């Protein structure tokens, strides 16, 4: 141990202190970055006096996995909730004011009033007007649902494009990690970048990871489909531009395997893509079927028969494209978009009172009296009689039309309620795991500042050492001169 070794020790101390300071400053600058993991400088002695500073990156595999899975879950749930909320508002209106259920009540009231004073043409017109509003609610609701499906399809297209580009970015980051590790360079930055892309990918599909020894990461979806393995797998999706009630959307294929849609209000879907598929293929078509059944119920109730009761034909409500006849108790897709007011009744509302919408054989009011109430009363009775509905639609198989419409409202609100509660839970889980992950791997500025204080002192001490040794050598050399 000589003075020169003291000098070189102080020199290496200065070097390591400055390296540690750079770590501290990097930490402080990235304190608010959620995708940054705290770096720690670990000083180790290789030989007496020689120090090596290695940079350790704080990470927790388990917490990251929890966070990523919570992220997928929560994104899927919020997507579902937002979709269901927007569907409800566009079909049923705010507070259900323009739902078919409410408007059917208005039609019933108008009919009752008309039957009390059947000679009034104004009241006849008001019945037709109430029917018109009901028809327009069904038509517009249908249109809104199919527009929603088309928009969801567009969103799916965007999501798949984004996912493909994210996988390409992930590929680059992964290759960077492998090459850095091979070359022995500091790999922390590359790891941070790769993790950031992983989190973004997890928003779209649920991801399970597996890390190999050389730092390579393999990505799979929750049900085992390969997403990335040394190269990204293709995710393909064919857009459907126009939707009608009978149209089925195309599936999203990951590596050739179709991605499953979620189901239920507390959705089993994970990741935005599954949730969008659920909205497009499950929720929206269910609502469309309900509207179609309501339309069929209305057409059936207001059918006109001959006074003997035979030869039922479309009465107040008719529909525009074929088929020619409706089967009782069977869903007819697209009926809600095609239901119309019968043009004969629009031209002459008193046909509701007298009959004869379908020709002279259907006239009930043979004497032509202006206060004939039997037909109007029979419509009122039919509205309170149960009819058969298609059980596969799932909201009732034998009930009145009005109750069926209320059941439809109840169904969608139950779904929204479940989705909302689940969204709260999943978001709380996400927040909690995010906090825990951040606490584990994030930066605390006060902590870094205190480290900096220590480093300052140690730098001062080393500098002082240098000065002291320098003075000692100078005095020695002065003695020999």
């Amino acid at each position: 141990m000589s003075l020169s070794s003291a000098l070189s020790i102080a020199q290496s101390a200065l070097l390591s202190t400055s390296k540690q300071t750079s770590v501290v400053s990097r930490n402080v600058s990235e304190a608010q970055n959620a995708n940054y993991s705290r770096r720690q400088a670990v000083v180790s002695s290789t030989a007496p006096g020689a120090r090596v500073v290695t940079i350790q990156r704080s990470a927790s595999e388990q917490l990251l996995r929890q966070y990523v899975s919570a992220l997928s879950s929560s994104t899927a749930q919020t997507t579902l909730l937002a979709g269901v909320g927007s569907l409800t508002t566009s079909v049923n209106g705010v507070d259900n004011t323009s739902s078919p259920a409410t408007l059917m009540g208005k039609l019933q009231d108008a009919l009752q009033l008309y039957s009390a004073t059947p000679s009034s043409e104004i009241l006849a017109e008001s019945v037709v007007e109430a029917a018109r509003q009901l028809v327009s609610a069904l038509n517009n609701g249908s249109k809104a649902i199919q527009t929603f499906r088309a928009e969801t399809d567009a969103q799916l297209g965007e999501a798949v494009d984004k996912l493909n580009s994210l996988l390409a970015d992930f590929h680059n980051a992964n290759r960077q990690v492998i090459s850095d590790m091979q070359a022995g360079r500091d790999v922390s930055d590359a790891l941070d970048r790769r993790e950031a892309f992983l989190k973004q990918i997890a928003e779209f599909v649920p991801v399970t990871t597996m890390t190999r020894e050389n730092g390579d990461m393999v990505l799979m979806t929750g049900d085992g489909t390969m997403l990335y393995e040394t190269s990204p797998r293709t995710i393909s999706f064919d857009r459907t531009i126009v939707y009608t009630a009978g149209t089925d959307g195309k599936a999203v294929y990951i590596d050739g395997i179709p991605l499953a849609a979620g189901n239920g209000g507390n959705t089993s879907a994970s990741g935005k893509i599954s949730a969008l598929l659920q909205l497009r293929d499950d929720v929206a078509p269910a609502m469309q079927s309900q509207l179609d059944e309501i339309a069929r119920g209305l057409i059936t109730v207001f059918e006109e028969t001959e006074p003997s009761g035979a030869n039922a034909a479309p009465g107040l409500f008719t529909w525009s494209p074929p088929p020619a006849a409706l089967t009782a108790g069977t869903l007819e897709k697209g009926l809600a978009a095609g239901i119309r007011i019968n043009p004969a009744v629009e031209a002459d509302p008193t046909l509701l009172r007298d009959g004869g919408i379908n020709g002279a054989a259907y006239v009930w009011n043979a004497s032509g009296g202006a206060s004939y109430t039997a037909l109007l009363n029979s419509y009122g009775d039919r509205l309170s009689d149960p009819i058969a509905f298609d059980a596969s639609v799932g909201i009732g198989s034998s009930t009145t039309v009005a109750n069926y419409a209320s059941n439809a409202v109840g169904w969608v609100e139950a779904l929204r309620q479940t989705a909302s509660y689940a969204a709260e839970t999943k978001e709380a889980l996400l927040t909690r795991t995010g906090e825990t992950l951040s606490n584990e791997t994030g930066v605390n500025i006060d902590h870094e500042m205190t480290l900096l204080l220590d480093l300052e002192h140690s730098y001062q001490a080393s500098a002082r050492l240098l000065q002291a040794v320098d003075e000692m050598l100078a005095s020695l050399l002065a003695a020999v001169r």
Partner: protein
Amino acid sequence: MKTNFVSSYAVSSALRHRLMQMQTDLVKAQKEATTGAVADTGLALGSRTGKLVSLQREVDSLQGMIVSNGLVSGRLNATQEALNRLRTVAEDFASTLTAGISSNSDVTVATTAANGVLETMTAILNNSLNGEYLFAGIDTDIPPFKDFTTAVPATFDTAFQSHFGFAQDDPQAVNITGADMETFLSTVIEPSFLDDSSPAPNWKTEWSNASDQKVVNRISLSERVESSTNANSEGVRRLAMAAASASALLTETMSVEAKAAVLNNALSQVGAAIGRITSEQTQFGIAQNRIKSANDRLEAQKDLFQRSALDLKGVDVAEAATRVSTLLTQIETSYALTARIQNLSILNYLT
């Protein structure tokens, strides 16, 4: 040495998150405090929202039925009043006829009275309410009672002529006995008024345009009521027959017996008519009662449904208001704390 580490990012984002949550709750609580109903019925009720929609619809429909019952009631009241007046007319005519029979006075008194009865009858029977003729059955846009002044006596004259072979004011009319006159009245005149299948001229062709069908109205979910009468009822026919025969068949040239027969027949017809009109009035009274009790029941049902709906979506306003003020205090405290915590940094103490 490892203690529980807290990162700056976690601290600040947690504070932000809590703040956003409280603000959302505040908006919801404020809406509930002002409207007294839950802020989002769908979220609060779930599948029971369907029940709420049904209840609200039922309340509206019951209210609508109460209103339409009011219309039907109005029609019943007006008809009842008209029937009253008709009965009064009939009773007055009966007393005039009685006086005519007992005093055997000039027939012109009875004839004038009969004409007056026919005119009043026309006015009463052609009464309308809101553009609907009350006595027309379901043909409410056509006046039920024809204008009789020229046609009726002509048909009587024709009938008299064809039965007896001469006119009423022919000198041979004095030979008509009481029995002959009674036969004439019961075999020719009565069927033409009472029997719709008798050959023309009969009641339907000469007197009434009314339809036989009565207006039936729905007054509650399961009840129907007949809410109109028509001019083809028996009381009206008999009264018209009495007045018409007294007006067209009495002439100076007839024998006292024949005149007495006509007057007696008219009197008995009027008596029967009063009886029938009274029984119709009773029926209408019953119908009016039915409507009133139906309305009472509908009101009670409506109240029940309104209370059920309120149970489903109602919120205690006082509790909601308390919640609003608690949240406001919490938010203000949270603002103060957030500011203090963010200001807490060791950098403030490093010179």
